[in-house]
């Protein structure tokens, strides 16, 4: 493939991923508000559009038209660039999601590694976003985010690694293609680790320490307003969608390996279910304290992931 | 606590501590004892040792020439409460701080200082607490006046 064609495909997929994230954020925020509302015995958005479906659209239009405030004391270039640094890796993560068996948009062999590594870039974005605001809450939030994302990176990687061992490939598409039903019980622990670590990676409750409302008011984006803040939120929901799709793709073999449209529907349903579960957990549990968070990562999740790895290692010789 | 018990208690503590004088009748329910300003701290310490382990309330009343400082002491072991009062001249408003005896006085004395301008000697951190640091005057004094204080018109 020529460089130009690669660039073209890359741009196309980049645009597509951005749009998917935008739409996912639109509906993700709506869904989160609705699910949270139901848990809280409310209705949630009702007035903007049918069932409040246009609520997030209204929010977005409003945010685009909001004044973009940059604090005087901020490190202005860094402050302004950081939303990009958070958003772009998020979009990039989407291109290695196995949308079909044996196929990912990007199509590199080390797709799993790409999926795990690239969103890790956003740690930098968040840390610097907090740092550059010169806001106390923001900088505390940024540091918390860095520590947290770094800690949960490991168990998440290990749980995906177990899958890669099982499939004998790093390509998510291949993993999806190789999937068979007995992986489900075998990879149960790995999936739980992946699921929890994904929540933590995305700074979502109960792991939302970096933006802990009751402690840090808004955390690392405390001084971001309008559209810049919206980009952070979009990235968060994009990450949510990407993690759910990837998880459904590799851990459940898409739609349990079912072919055709049925598989596609089940695949999407699984991803939606995972997203809803993440929202459900967020609105049920209290938030962890930083030390609890760290010890959970290192003392619970990492051993679990290692255990999963060992379990997979036990069956590997018979494959 | 019945009035009889209260009277007995009052008698007991005043007999035990000659610096205390019973001040008022018991018709409103609580025993009230008075003490000279100079002897406040020593008396309060005695009372604490006698079982009044809790300083419930510190406040003051502006009686024109003097401020009446009112302490409410409470004892769980005796199951009793008394009011300890001392008079502080308006133009020389200071009194010993009881923070060393009861940390509960830490904020309450600051509040009295803030609103009445009574100095508590020995208080570790005597600053304004409720009002802004740059506030002028002590508003709960009866002679406090302020353009911001619009008086309510009166029908009665």
């Amino acid at each position, binding site marked *: 493939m020529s460089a130009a064609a690669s660039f073209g495909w890359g741009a196309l997929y980049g645009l597509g991923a951005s749009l998917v994230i935008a739409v996912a954020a639109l509906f993700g925020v709506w869904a989160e508000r609705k699910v949270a509302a139901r848990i*809280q015995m409310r209705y949630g958005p009702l007035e903007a559009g049918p069932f409040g479906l246009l609520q997030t659209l209204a929010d977005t239009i409003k945010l685009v038209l909001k004044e973009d405030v940059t604090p005087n004391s901020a490190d202005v270039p860094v402050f302004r660039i950081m939303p990009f640094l958070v958003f772009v890796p998020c979009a990039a993560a989407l291109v290695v999601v196995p949308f079909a068996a044996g196929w990912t948009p990007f199509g590199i062999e080390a797709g799993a590694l790409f999926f795990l590594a690239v969103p890790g870039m956003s740690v930098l974005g968040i840390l610097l976003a907090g740092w550059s605001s010169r806001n106390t809450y923001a900088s505390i939030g940024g540091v918390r985010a860095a520590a947290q994302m770094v800690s949960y990176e490991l168990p998440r990687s290990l749980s995906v690694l177990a899958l890669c061992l099982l499939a004998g490939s790093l390509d998510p598409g291949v993993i999806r293609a190789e999937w068979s039903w007995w992986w489900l019980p075998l990879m149960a622990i790995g999936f739980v680790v992946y699921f929890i670590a994904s929540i933590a990676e995305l700074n979502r409750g109960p792991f939302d320490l970096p933006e802990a409302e009751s402690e840090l008011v808004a955390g690392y984006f405390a001084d971001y307003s309008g559209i810049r803040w919206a980009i952070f939120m979009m990235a968060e929901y994009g990450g949510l969608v990407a993690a759910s799709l990837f998880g459904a793709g590799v851990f459940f073999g898409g739609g349990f390996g079912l072919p055709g449209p049925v598989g596609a529907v089940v695949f999407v349903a699984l991803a939606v279910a995972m997203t809803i579960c993440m929202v459900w*957990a967020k609105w*049920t549990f209290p938030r962890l304290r930083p030390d609890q968070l760290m010890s959970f990562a290192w003392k619970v999740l990492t051993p679990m992931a290692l255990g999963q790895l060992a379990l997979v290692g036990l069956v590997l010789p018979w494959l | 606590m019945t009035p009889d018990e209260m009277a007995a208690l009052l008698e007991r503590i005043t007999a035990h501590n000659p610096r205390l004088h019973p001040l008022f009748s018991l018709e409103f329910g609580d025993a009230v004892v008075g003490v000279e300003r100079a002897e406040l701290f020593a008396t309060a310490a005695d009372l604490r040792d006698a079982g009044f382990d809790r300083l419930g309330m510190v406040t003051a009343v502006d009686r024109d020439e003097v401020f009446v400082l009112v302490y409410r002491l409470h004892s769980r072991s005796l199951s009793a409460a008394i009011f300890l009062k001392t008079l502080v001249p308006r133009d020389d408003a200071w009194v010993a701080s009881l923070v060393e005896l009861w940390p509960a006085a830490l904020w309450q004395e600051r509040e009295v200082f803030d609103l009445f301008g009574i100095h508590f000697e020995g208080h570790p951190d005597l600053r304004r607490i409720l009002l802004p640091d740059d506030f002028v005057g002590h508003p709960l004094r009866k002679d406090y006046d302020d353009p911001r204080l619009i008086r309510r*018109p009166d*029908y*009665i």
Partner: protein
Amino acid sequence: MAVTRQQDKATVPDRTPTSVRLAISATDDFSPGLKGFAERVRSLVVGLGITARRSVSRPVTLKYPAEKVELSPRWRGALRLTGVLGREDVALIEGPASDYNGLIDDLYRHDRLPPCVGNCPANVDARGQSFLLADDRAAEAYELVRARNILPGVLGRICHHPCESACKRTYYDEPIAIRPLHRVAFERYAEHRAERVAPLPVTREERIAIIGSGPSGLAAAFDLMHAGFEVHVYEKEHAAGGALLSGVPAYRLPRDVLATEIADLQTMGMKLLTGVRIGTDVPIDHLIGEYDAVLIAAGLQVSRMLPVPGSDAQGIWGALDFLKAGNWKGGCGVKGRRVLVIGGGNVAVDCARVALRCGAAQVTLSSLESMDELPAHPWEIEEALDEGVIAMCSYGPKEVLVENGRVAGMRLQSCLSVFDAQGRFAPVFAEEFTDVPADVIVFAIGQAPQLAELVSGSDLVLTERGLLPVDGALMTTQVPGVFACGEVVTGPGSAIASVASGHEAATSIIRYLDGRSLSEGRVYRPVPVYPRYQPATLTGVEPARRRTVMPMAKGADRARDFRQVELGFTHLEGLAEAARCLRCASEVCVGCTFCARTCPDYAITVERIDDPGHRSVTRYDLDLSKCCFCGLCAEQCPTGALRHTGQYELSFYHRDFAVFDRHEMVRSPEGSRATGADCRGCGDAR
């Protein structure tokens, strides 16, 4: 978590043990190891389960705007005021007294009847009287009162005024002096009497006989004359008035007042036949045959006596005889003697004070009840003590000490309590005796009827207590066409209650003669409608604004003779006192400004003119933006003119909009609705 029990079990009625331990034992920490891990996971799953369960239940959110919050009937919201009554725009109470009188029926509902009217047994319109008096229309006021209380001048002196104890102004300071205002009205009626009192036309051919010319008989006569009947009143004494004449001492009720008012009735057409004793002079059957209806309003004639040893000695008096002797015969032979009055009621106090006026050397009042429990009105006791009566409370009579057939004194036994826990009369005595020397002993422990003679020869049957049984509030006896009212029915009671029963009897007689149903459409009057407000026993509270104080003769002088003790109000005092009336329940603002005085945040501002006799509000602002919605103003409003609206206080764009002045608050014809129209479901809850 430990739970301590320090409960005195004895003081606790039927304990219901409830476990305070909730679903989990939260004090216990998680177990170590894998079990603890499982417990931890379980706690998370339980939490998820709870939220999931809630999420599938119906949201508690009101689906708006279809569903609205139902406001409580006691809702405290924005205020409205109906009608502002100044001098110039009298809205409701207007026109001659008779028109206003018609309103009583309209107002005859619990919530709209003013407390004074509701609490009066005869429903005398005290509110209307105050209004008319304040407006300097004394003649109308007098006639308004007379419509329900035929002897305003008399009762203006002797009534026990249940109206005043219900007066809502008590909440604010002190009640209106309603009873003295009757007297003011009476005194000012003198100049109108000649022109306004005229014979009533007799339009009906039926004739009615009334036995007894006490308050109840006269009340019935008045109503019946107004209905167009010819009324004959039989009186066994030589002057009309009944108990008012024989039982009420002249220092309370001058004779000419009673005579004037009875003369008015005679002018109207009442035939008075004095000196006729029914039963002995004329058998009652004769009356029943002669007249179309007979009303027995004979009252109580005899005093009860105590069957203690020595009670037949010389110098023992019954209260009625004693009073009659004191009142009529100018003395009862107690000059220079020591008098002991047994009893604690109003009659006893009267006896004591009469004895003083008759020149007794020493008057002692001995009662079974303690000072606080005395059945006599407190003001009577106070006046008696003022005059020098000695009270010996909590003593019961044991025996009369007799020397030579004459009273020498009385042995009294100390009484510990009079009533038992259920409030029944069950005196408990201590073994302690006191001898009180006395030359004259008056038993004022109650009166009894003496009707056997009266009803002899007829089909009328008396009750065990000697009273005439009547059918509920209809006042009918066993014999058709014979009615009874007053104390022969009720037993000892107040004058105003007798008046009320006279009115009821008259209504029954009119219906009977019209051939209508006696009971149809008649409400059994719920008297008292309002609770009586007895002044609370306060140790340190004084009312801030006093009512006009009744001028009294000085205690030492007044005990010498039978001149009236209460001196009465002057014209101006009367005006001022009448103007104090709040005109409760009229639902029109009368400018009393109580709301403004009560408002803790001065959200109600009033500019007003306040002079004796008049109230006028020139400006009245309600500031919604200062109001703290405490509801005190509406609670204080005596007329019910100030109310909470059914709306939520709504949002507005300019702060000035939150102030209403007087003209916006006046009730609009259609009963305007506030901003409900624009709000989607918020403000328009009702």
